[in-house]
């Protein structure tokens, strides 16, 4: 009698430890975003009254902060700029990285292996080392305060990573597939375009999402190249132009952060398994 009971207590204990651990981690990860959402809908007077319980709505929720954000600030313009740069960079990245990833995965001689490692190693030359010379180069090209400067430079970190990811995806496709197509009369390049690319849609989509999130994340180049408020992207516009001196419009600021973060995270979540698979295959094999 005692043994099953103690076993049950032990399972119960292990289960609650398991759920407790997960709950703690989830809280740590998500709390800042929860806090952003709560803050967004609060009256400024409610936020700034230290007597109030900050977890509760002591005054009725308001849309005022979001109205200010969309009507009185450049936030909509930054959303548009980010989307525009993101799409342009994704297109450039795909045009460069898809063929390169395939070449590294299939048409391999010794040089391909060395090239793959060389491309991986460009990660050791991060934007932090390059932004100072780029500041001068972009100036000389007359691209300061232009979104084109970002379209030109952003693929420099997206292409190596995406080539690496795509190499992993292409390696996972059986060779027989192209070989059958080539026996049927297609050239190697034809087989790549008509057979390999269509079956890799999921992998390519993963790279699209990934390149787009890299663009959304980027901070240092945009901060260096662009000073005109109307040409900024979200990641720089929100932290620099929604904060004026010491005056923080916390409601609008938190609204901007929540709106810019959560939708992309939902999309990314759908692709994360493929992303990890490509990442680890590429890195280990």
């Amino acid at each position, binding site marked *: 009698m005692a043994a099953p009971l103690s076993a049950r207590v032990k399972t119960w204990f292990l289960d609650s430890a398991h759920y407790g651990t997960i709950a703690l981690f989830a809280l740590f990860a998500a*709390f800042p975003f929860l806090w952003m959402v709560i803050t967004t809908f609060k009256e400024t007077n409610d936020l700034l009254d230290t007597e109030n319980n900050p977890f509760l709505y002591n005054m009725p929720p308001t849309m005022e902060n979001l109205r200010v954000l969309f009507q009185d600030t450049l936030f909509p313009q930054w959303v548009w700029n980010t989307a525009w740069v993101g799409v342009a960079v994704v297109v450039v990245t795909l045009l460069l990285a898809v063929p390169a990833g395939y070449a590294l995965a299939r048409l391999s001689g010794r040089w391909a292996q060395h090239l793959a490692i060389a*491309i991986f190693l460009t990660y050791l030359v991060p934007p932090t080392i390059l932004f100072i010379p780029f500041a001068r180069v972009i100036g000389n090209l007359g691209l300061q305060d232009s979104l084109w400067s970002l379209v030109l430079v952003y693929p420099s970190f997206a292409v190596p990573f995406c*080539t690496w990811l795509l190499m992993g995806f292409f390696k996972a496709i059986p060779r027989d597939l192209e070989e059958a197509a080539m026996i049927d009369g297609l050239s190697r390049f034809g087989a790549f375009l008509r057979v390999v690319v269509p079956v890799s849609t999921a992998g390519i989509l993963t790279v699209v999402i990934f390149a787009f999130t890299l663009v959304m994340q980027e901070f240092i180049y945009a901060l260096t190249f662009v000073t005109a408020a109307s040409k900024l992207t979200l990641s720089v516009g*929100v932290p620099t132009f929604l904060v004026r001196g010491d005056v923080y419009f916390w409601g609008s600021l938190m609204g901007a952060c929540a709106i810019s973060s959560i939708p992309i995270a939902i999309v990314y979540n759908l692709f994360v398994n493929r992303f990890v698979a490509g990442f680890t295959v590429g890195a280990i094999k």
Partner: protein
Amino acid sequence: MTPPQDAGTAAMAIAPRRFFGRLIDSEEWLGRAMIGPAVIYIVLLVGFPFLLALFYSVSNITVGSAATKYVGFHNFKMIMENPSFWVALKNTFIFTIVSQVIVLVLAKILAMALMKDFRGKWFVRFLILLPWVAPVSLGAIGWLWIFDSIYSIINWTGRALGIFGPDVWPIWLGQPVLAMASIITVHVWRMLPLATVIVLAGLSSIPHDIHDAAQVDGAGFWRRLFQITIPLVLPILMVAMLFGIVFTSTDMVVVYVLTRGGPYDSTHVLASQAFFTGIEGGDLAEGAAIALFLFPILVAVAIGFLTVARRSEVT
């Protein structure tokens, strides 16, 4: 009359097609043509500016100047004489090492907790991934509000629960030690998701038989952890750490948003100091020199980790 002419035009039409056809069929040339554009782009936009950075660091270039001349190691000497550089160098090491150690331990725990199936797992995974996917500058703004000197939710909760006495009111970003702890917290928060998914991928690739066999042989939890699990996920762990170190040690966003290097320049890292010197201060040469200090560190780390990863993969 017509047949020879026909043959002639036909041959001429076929010749170029054959030429390109052969080019396309030649694997070697096709490979070069497919990878060429990416390589040229990377050489122009990573290799060339890197050489420029090397050149700037031994010149006297500024934002406004037209003429630049070679000044040898003058910039490096100037930097080393500046005590705030040493603070930034030390901070870069502290932020990177401390946050990576914490991230690795937490990622291992979290990944093991996520190995089991439970209801609502997809939602938990979504929550845990949020900090990695959200733009880090915006996540850091969220933390700026959490760490606010007057309205900090941490302080309010601490006071309400009686953890903080009536005289305790930490100014998270205004005291050097607390500011550093805050920056490390945000780095951990930000890097944990990526490390967790990578470790999780490594854990799920271990065949169940191995664990079962070990359990039958009487190996306990800790023994299995240190003698089976950790050695088997080591290569993947190394890759995760390499990326973590590269991302953390070259990042300036968290410092820029949270403290701008303050209080009293105590939280600058090399990246943020390079920015404030080179771009805000206009001294491109000295900024380039500061940023370049990161490079040998990264190379050493990469060589070390890749060697370990390769070696542990063979055994």
